[in-house]
């Protein structure tokens, strides 16, 4: 029986978000993978998993910058058409999820451990259409019907 070929996009801002995402690297062993992050310094670390795209970092305080990153992510999504996006945020992560979703990608969201009291803003944005939502705190997961707790990676 032929197995559906899945292409996985790993998307995370450089720094803590990326560190947490890479903790679960066993997940994508054997799959075709490409990476999206936000600082050139992490390119070498990510290239051993697959093609790596570096977009600009952005956050909610800079809507014009964010728009630019949105277009960067859109062009990556059009080119790559990932089947799945796995992300820990932050803004570049959610923008990759949103644009990939236009092409029916499934979304796996692991909310950053820094969000100890409620889901991050990007997590709340992605929640309506994520396939799997994870928080790293059981009391945060308990606040949302469709958010699970499987443990902490940091």
């Amino acid at each position, binding site marked *: 029986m032929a*197995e*559906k070929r*899945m292409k*996985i996009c790993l998307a995370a801002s450089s*720094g*803590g978000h990326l*560190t*947490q995402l890479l*903790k*679960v690297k*066993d*997940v994508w062993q054997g*799959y075709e993978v490409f990476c999206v992050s936000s600082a050139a310094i992490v390119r070498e670390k990510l290239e051993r998993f697959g093609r790596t795209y570096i977009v600009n970092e952005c*956050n*909610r*305080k800079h809507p014009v910058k964010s728009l630019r990153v949105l277009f960067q992510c859109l062009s990556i999504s059009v080119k790559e058409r990932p*089947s*799945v996006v*796995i992300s820990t945020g932050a803004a570049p992560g959610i923008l990759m999820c949103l644009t990939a979703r236009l092409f029916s990608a*499934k979304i*796996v969201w*692991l909310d*950053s*451990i*820094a*969000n*100890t*009291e409620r889901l*991050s*803003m990007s997590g709340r944005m992605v929640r309506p259409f994520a*396939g*799997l939502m*994870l928080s*790293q*705190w059981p009391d945060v997961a308990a606040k949302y019907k469709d958010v*699970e707790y*499987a*443990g*902490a*990676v*940091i």
Partner: protein
Amino acid sequence: MIFLTVGTLFPFDRLVKAVDSGIGEGMVEEEVFAQIGRNGYEPKNMEYVESLDKKAFDEKVKKAVGLISHAGMGSIAMALDHNKPLLVMPRLKMYGEHVNDHQVGTAKKFEELGHILVAYTKEELPDKLQMLKHFVPKKRETQVEAVAERISDYLKQIKRA
């Protein structure tokens, strides 16, 4: 040596100034080395740099007997990995130190779990600096395999669909 770091994103002058004046008032006996961030406030009572490359940064952490930082996850994870006592001050949105106040929640949570010390205001700093000397952080347990398994199960599920 105590290593003070403000993290990689922006300066944190409120913390650096408070530690700097604390040293001036004799609050800290240990020598303090500070990484102050780009265009950060330049302290008068400690040796400092704006930034450090990864190797130099790791060396400072290894040599330090204690760490002082903002309540960023990178700093907390680094202290836990090296089993070093860490005192944090959360960045606050109202001072333009971060986009929101999530560092307060992070600080409270990790303080509750016994992993770090927290000074929520600069008035709390002197007492907490004293406590840093004798603080033994509780070891942190993680569940990386369980999280990876949950995600893998989901991937298998969508493959079959």
